């Protein structure tokens, strides 16, 4: 079965430090990959997506992710985090087996940025 694994459930980091949130997916076919952010009591907001082409994807709020097919990974990075980046981050995959729109999500990583 297809799955998305987020390797860290919680990541504490100090303000202005770099951060990497890790995501691995299982697939033997092409997939589309996404990172979403969820602030408390809110829905999900798309940070960035990989559909095809360049393996380095830039998103909103200074985040970027690199698609690595050989390692089936799609790690999210930011060179310098802010307090406002404190939120839960979800990696998701879509397009399995020709599916139209359903997304398979990881369990999430809670990023906590401390002053």
């Amino acid at each position, binding site marked *: 079965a297809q799955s*998305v694994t*987020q390797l860290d459930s919680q990541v504490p980091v100090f303000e202005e430090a770099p951060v990497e949130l890790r995501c691995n997916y299982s697939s033997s076919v092409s997939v*589309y990959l996404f990172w*979403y952010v969820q602030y408390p*009591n*809110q*829905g*999900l*907001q*798309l940070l960035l*997506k990989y*559909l095809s082409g360049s393996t380095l994807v830039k998103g909103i709020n200074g985040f970027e992710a690199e698609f690595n097919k050989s390692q089936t990974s799609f790690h999210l990075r930011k060179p310098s985090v802010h307090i406002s980046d404190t939120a839960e981050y*979800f990696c*998701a995959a*879509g*397009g399995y087996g020709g*599916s*139209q*729109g*359903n*997304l*398979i*999500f*990881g*369990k*999430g990583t809670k990023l906590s940025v401390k002053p």
Partner: protein
Amino acid sequence: DAGVTQSPTHLIKTRGQQVTLRCSPKSGHDTVSWYQQALGQGPQFIFQYYEEEERQRGNFPDRFSGHQFPNYSSELNVNALLLGDSALYLCASSFGGSPYNEQFFGPGTRLTVL
């Protein structure tokens, strides 16, 4: 332009009851997907509606059903509620249902089953 809206925001039900959750998609969108997010988990796909028909379904029992109206709004119905149905229910809208097109999520309805 209003984004995706969901109602109600919170709901408390008892086991065995039935519940209906509502979703209005973002303007210009014709596809609605529903997800269940249990506490501490990522969202799980329930089903997707396009052109008033269920186009795709996740691994959820028949107690979960839905409907899409001509104006593209949608309802999620859950019958015979179980304690395990307690979760945040998210609605997402998109255009055409293609994974190329971004899904916009609403704030969710938090359902508590006692």
